[in-house]
């Protein structure tokens, strides 16, 4: 007879090593190049903003969960990811209270109110950003060019100094920027959005470890390129300026708020691309990545329902 206790549980009895926790921390790792780029271009203040946002997100998650008597889940890393992503969408000049408030809003209202991880319909980081943009529009659109960019910036008109590249395009200002500098991230913009190089390194890392599905960034970026060509914008400028790459690889790929079906994900990416270019070209804002993704988040349940894959051997039900 068995003289010891054994576990009796349902099969399968083996599990893959990848856990939610590990995925979230890998996303954090994938964003480190962008964090370094932001510190390189915008100085130590960038790090401060990031830390404020991350700590606020994590503490808010814990506080709300304690208040609601739910298990505290900050260890899963999802709140840290939200805090980090939010920080990377902020201008380098914001007062430190903004990342604190934005991250708290993102977690409390964007996520916990719906039941926490897995249940929020909208990307929490983008909810936090939308909240800050609506509440402090001036602070959220005060830009600063990296000190290192001033040498090649001098040749530009004065108007350049307080704007982003997309802002300039919106105003109709002709901009002549060296694409290499843009690619490296040596231009004005939000903390983590300027360096395409750093973001691509992180994005490729996520793709390589199959943490994100290629369909979303490819659908998104591909659509932006096509649309740019169609409406007569410079596609390279559209790709490198603004938050497109950050959005396409790190926000539009958020699991919870995007479709689970392969076809749904492709459509999601394409939809984000269409909306982004519509807003940039014809909308009131110079940039539309955040709102595009939020709008497509809303469509996610529908996309899932409309793109249910045909099952192996599926037999159509009668009637």
């Amino acid at each position: 007879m068995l003289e010891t206790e054994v576990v009796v549980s349902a099969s399968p009895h083996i599990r893959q090593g990848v856990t939610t926790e590990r995925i979230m921390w890998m996303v954090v790792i994938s964003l480190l190049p962008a964090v370094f780029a932001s510190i390189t271009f915008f100085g130590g203040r960038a790090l401060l903003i990031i830390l404020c946002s991350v700590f606020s997100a994590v503490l808010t998650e814990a506080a709300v969960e304690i208040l609601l008597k739910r298990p505290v889940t900050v260890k899963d890393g999802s709140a840290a990811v939200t805090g980090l992503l939010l920080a990377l969408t902020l201008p380098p000049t914001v007062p430190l209270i903004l990342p604190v408030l934005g991250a708290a809003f993102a977690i409390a209202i964007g996520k916990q109110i719906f039941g926490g991880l897995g249940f929020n319909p909208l990307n929490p980081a983008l909810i936090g950003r939308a909240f800050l943009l609506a509440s402090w529009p001036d602070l959220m659109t005060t830009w600063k060019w990296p000190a290192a960019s001033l040498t090649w910036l001098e040749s530009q008109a004065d108007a350049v100094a307080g704007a982003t590249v997309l802002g300039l395009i919106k105003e109709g200002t002709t901009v002549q920027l060296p694409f290499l500098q843009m690619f490296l991230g040596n231009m004005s913009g939000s903390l983590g959005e300027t360096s395409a190089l750093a973001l691509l390194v992180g994005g490729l890392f996520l793709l390589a470890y199959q943490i994100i599905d290629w369909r979303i960034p490819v659908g998104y970026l591909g659509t932006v390129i096509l649309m740019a060509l169609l409406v007569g914008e410079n596609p390279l400028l559209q790709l490198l300026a603004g938050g497109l790459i950050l959005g396409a690889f790190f926000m539009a790929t958020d699991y919870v708020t995007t479709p689970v079906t392969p076809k749904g994900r492709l459509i999601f990416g394409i939809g984000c691309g269409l909306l982004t270019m519509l807003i940039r070209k014809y909308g009131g804002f110079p940039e539309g990545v955040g709102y595009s993704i939020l709008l497509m988040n809303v469509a996610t349940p529908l996309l899932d329902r409309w793109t249910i894959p045909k099952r192996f051997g599926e037999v159509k039900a009668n009637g």
Partner: protein
Amino acid sequence: MRFRTFKKGVYLPGNKERTASLPVEVLPLPRQVVLPLRQHIGAPAEPVVAVGDEVLTGQKIAEAKGKVSLPLHASISGKVVAIEPRPHVSGELVPAIVIESDGTERMAPELHAPPRLEELSAEQLKELMQEAGLAGMGGAAFPTHVKYDPPPGKKIEYILLNGAECEPYLTCDHRLMVERADDIILGLMAMLKAGQATKGLIGVEVNKPDALAALEKAATGLPIEVLPLKVKYPQGEEKMLIYAATGRVVPAGALPIEVGVVVNNVATAAAFGEYLRTGKPLISRLVTVTGAGIKSPKNLEVRLGTLLEDVLNYCGGFTDAPGRIILGGPMTGPAQYRLDLPVMKGTSGIVVQTRAEVEKPDYGPCIRCGKCVDVCPYNALPNYFGLYAEHDRLAEVEKYGIFDCRECGSCTYVCPSRRPLLQLIKDAKRKIMASRKTG
């Protein structure tokens, strides 16, 4: 080189190296066997012996009851000491015939090889299948002969033997193919005749090159094709195997015969082959005893009815306090909590995990990562099965095609939130079936 396979699925750590190269050892005769009357799907067998009777090895001790049923044979010689409900792998108590060994092996005199294959008709062969007590030895234990009566209008084209052995840890089919290829081929030839089929196929994952070679050699000149398959789970799942081997898709809810195929396990074919060669019915089978929790892992030939504790003792027992005891492979086999369970016709392995290998059963919310969607060989959305099943929204799970799911467990294996998807799926199916019965 690309090998035949199906779409999606998962790559599992094989964990077969402990036993893959160990030749089959014969477990010494047990002092007692417990032979449940229900070892197969269908009606339980009916005892034809009484308590106190002397029985001989191979003697029929229970009769098949109807068409979808099988007889049962004494797996050792000795005395019937009880016919009573005994613990069964299903967790229930199931009537069983208990035989105490006389310490020797006295074979039943009626055991002699049937006439040669050339002299047997298809009908006779089907009767012999039932007479030999053949049930699917891959785990499901469906009476073999039943598959050989196609419904009107259907014809069997291929007999497909399943030698994929895609479950991690298990190597008994592997050893069988290496060591007893001739019996497998003889069994398959007889199956072809019984089913009046044109061609035999044997699917084997390419991680068993010696098995492929042995079968190739034994099948030389015969209408049998040995198919190397990609190593991927669930390669041995019936409909995936059919797709890999023939490119045919069995419709959901239908049997393989719908596309002209009958699938049997290689072990079933070998048991039939052995019966035709020697007249010995199904009274033993190969079992892989393995896992980090087993002192000396082995491939064993075990008499049916041998209790798990006797098998484990022969393998040196546990290395330490065991964490989990699995009957069959770790992907689909049920975990057990007692060792007085008998080895049955469908028992392919005993896998013992250590405590360190057993994860705590905590699970988190679905984060909609879509990993389950990426691996589901049936191309379903397992995450939605889980979400709806959790809240008993049975109409939705049915709409999402829960009955197309064949319970391979790939979704659950990859889930980063450790959600018990397969358990939720099985539970929902059971509830739907129950409501259909009452409704």
